[in-house]
């Protein structure tokens, strides 16, 4: 029993509710939400240390023993993601302070932001399949409202597409839950793992596994990313940043959890299929990233590429591949928030998202330009920046397990990323300065601090990789060893 596990869920939720009561006091809302997120990040560091020392932590809600009650389980993987979530959300929150606008702040922006974090944190920590669904809905409903904020015609159309896609995928999620419950009679993840390894993963269970694969692929944007470029390019920058950093990652987390803890018996069917999906995703995302001349479109297609790349590590099911996936997942959360915030700032300054009409921003905004350059190199995976280790380990893992084609496509996708990021850099920052400082549509006042914060975070992850290497290795070991998770829940 460890009550610390529930705090990353309860603190943002309680703060959000308090903020609804004090709706008019904007200053108080800002301070309280920032405090809540900082406390959450401190708690996730504490949790990480506890897990490092004592193994996987569990909490049975209401004292009802597993598998009858709802379990909360914190393993190293969840704790690392919690920490990354907190850092990213602090960055996006500070960015929102000076960019989101009075009207949105009055319309419950901060409570909704905190509910989003509640749902994401809960999804990382819960040890129950139905509870996972509930937390998915919590952050989805918050995101439905956040994505419509502002509300011009195009944004509304894309939001409706996003909402209906997610309603359908939630329905599929429930269908999967119903099938799994009628076959195994339990919804506790650890108990499901035991039951399925006892009866064996036959064709029917593998089919249900595919159903879950569809659900999480829709949420994560693995092949089924048709909704993603549109809906991530319409909301205000701070919201787009947090979406790109967190929402697809929760889908990836759920997929990694399900396919390492429960459906791991038939890797030659399920994992191979995920591998094919990942390869196609990387190629299609790459084509999108190099094809478009719209800044936000290019960035959203980069989100798609990274989803495919992270899944490649899961496919390999080797310690190296898993380590790589975890490294790259954390790196990707930070870096996607970073590039979306920088991209949004560029659009804010230039007043357009068309790369052909932006040029030479580096003359007046050298810091912004160089931070984008660092982020771009880091995304491509230049050592010693943060993307490098993830790429090396994932490629090593895929080669070790014999998926040479997958590793190859992953490396090819890096070239796509390189080309698309350098295209942005050359067009937006380099070249002739066409906007004088007076002509710029907006200022960067207050926007550079969160960007710098995330850049520092990403650099720390790159240069200090040795510091968390032990943690990541432990997380990978726990993922590849379901018995550790099971014994933690039942003892």
């Amino acid at each position, binding site marked *: *029993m460890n*009550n610390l596990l*529930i705090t990353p869920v*309860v603190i943002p*939720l*309680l703060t959000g*509710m*308090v903020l*609804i*009561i004090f*709706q008019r006091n904007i200053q108080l809302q800002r301070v309280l939400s920032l405090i809540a997120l900082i406390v959450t990040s401190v708690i996730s560091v504490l949790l990480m240390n506890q897990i490092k020392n004592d193994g996987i932590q569990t*909490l*049975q*809600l*209401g*004292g009802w023993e597993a598998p009858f009650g709802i379990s909360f389980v914190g393993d190293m993987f969840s704790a690392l993601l919690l920490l990354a979530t907190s850092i990213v959300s602090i960055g996006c929150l500070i960015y929102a302070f000076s960019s989101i606008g009075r009207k949105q702040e009055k319309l419950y922006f901060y409570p909704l932001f905190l509910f989003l974090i509640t749902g994401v944190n809960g999804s990382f920590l819960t040890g129950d399949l139905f509870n996972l669904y509930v937390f998915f809905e919590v952050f989805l409903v918050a995101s439905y409202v956040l994505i419509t904020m502002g509300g011009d015609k195009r944004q509304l159309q894309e939001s409706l597409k996003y909402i209906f896609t997610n309603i359908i995928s939630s329905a599929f999620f429930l269908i999967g839950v119903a099938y799994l419950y009628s076959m195994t009679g339990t919804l506790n993840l650890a108990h499901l793992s035991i039951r399925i390894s006892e009866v064996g993963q036959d064709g029917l269970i593998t089919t249900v596994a595919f159903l879950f694969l569809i659900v999480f692929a829709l949420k994560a944007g693995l092949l089924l990313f048709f909704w993603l470029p549109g809906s991530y390019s319409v909301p205000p920058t701070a919201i787009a940043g947090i979406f790109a950093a967190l929402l697809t990652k929760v889908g990836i987390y759920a997929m990694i959890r399900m396919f390492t803890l429960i459906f791991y018996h038939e890797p030659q069917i399920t994992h191979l299929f995920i591998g094919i999906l990942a390869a196609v995703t990387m190629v299609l995302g790459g084509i999108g990233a190099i094809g478009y001349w719209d800044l936000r479109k290019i960035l959203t297609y980069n989100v798609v590429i990274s989803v495919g790349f992270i899944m490649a590590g899961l496919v390999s099911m080797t310690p190296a591949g898993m380590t790589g996936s975890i490294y790259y997942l954390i790196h990707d959360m930070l870096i996607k928030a970073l590039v979306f915030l920088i991209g949004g700032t560029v659009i804010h300054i230039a007043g357009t998202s068309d790369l052909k009409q932006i040029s030479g921003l580096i003359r007046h905004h050298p810091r912004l330009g160089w931070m984008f350059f660092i982020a771009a190199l880091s995304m491509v995976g230049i050592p010693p920046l943060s993307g490098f280790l993830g790429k090396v380990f994932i490629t090593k893992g895929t080669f070790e397990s014999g998926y040479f084609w997958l590793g190859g496509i992953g490396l090819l996708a890096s070239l796509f990323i390189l080309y698309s990021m350098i295209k942005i850099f050359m067009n937006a920052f380099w070249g002739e300065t066409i906007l004088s400082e007076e002509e710029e549509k907006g200022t960067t006042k207050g926007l550079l601090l969160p960007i710098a914060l995330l850049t520092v975070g990403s650099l720390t992850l790159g240069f200090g990789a040795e510091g968390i290497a032990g943690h990541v290795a432990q997380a990978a070991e726990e993922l590849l060893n379901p018995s550790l998770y099971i014994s933690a829940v039942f003892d």
Partner: protein
Amino acid sequence: MKPNDVILRSVTRVAAVIILTFSIYLFMNGHHHPGGGFIGGLSTASAIVLLYLSFGIEKVRENIRTDFKKLAAIGVLIAIGTGTASVLFGKPFLTQTFGHVDLPIFGDTELASALIFDTGVALAVIGTAVNIILSISEDR
């Protein structure tokens, strides 16, 4: 819109009281029998919505001066608050407890901390349900 339905109004005058009483019964009954905060709250909300329908939003707002958004938030705060209280006693989050009290009229009565939790749930449900109806019907 000016509502002018004599039958609806006269029925509502009686029915609202009955619905409200029944919702309290449902709410208190919930510990061992069908009922509880959720449906208790829902039936209260239905009574309030019925009042809105028959007497118009303005008139009801004059008499019930509650911000239902805040009511919902306070409800959730109470519900999670009881869960967090168990953490203070070193028990897992959301642990409930109960005790028997000898009340003067009711005799031996069972009081459970789940009742406070249910109060929170009821307030949250009333707040949300009424709020949804209000925000759909607001700009007629």
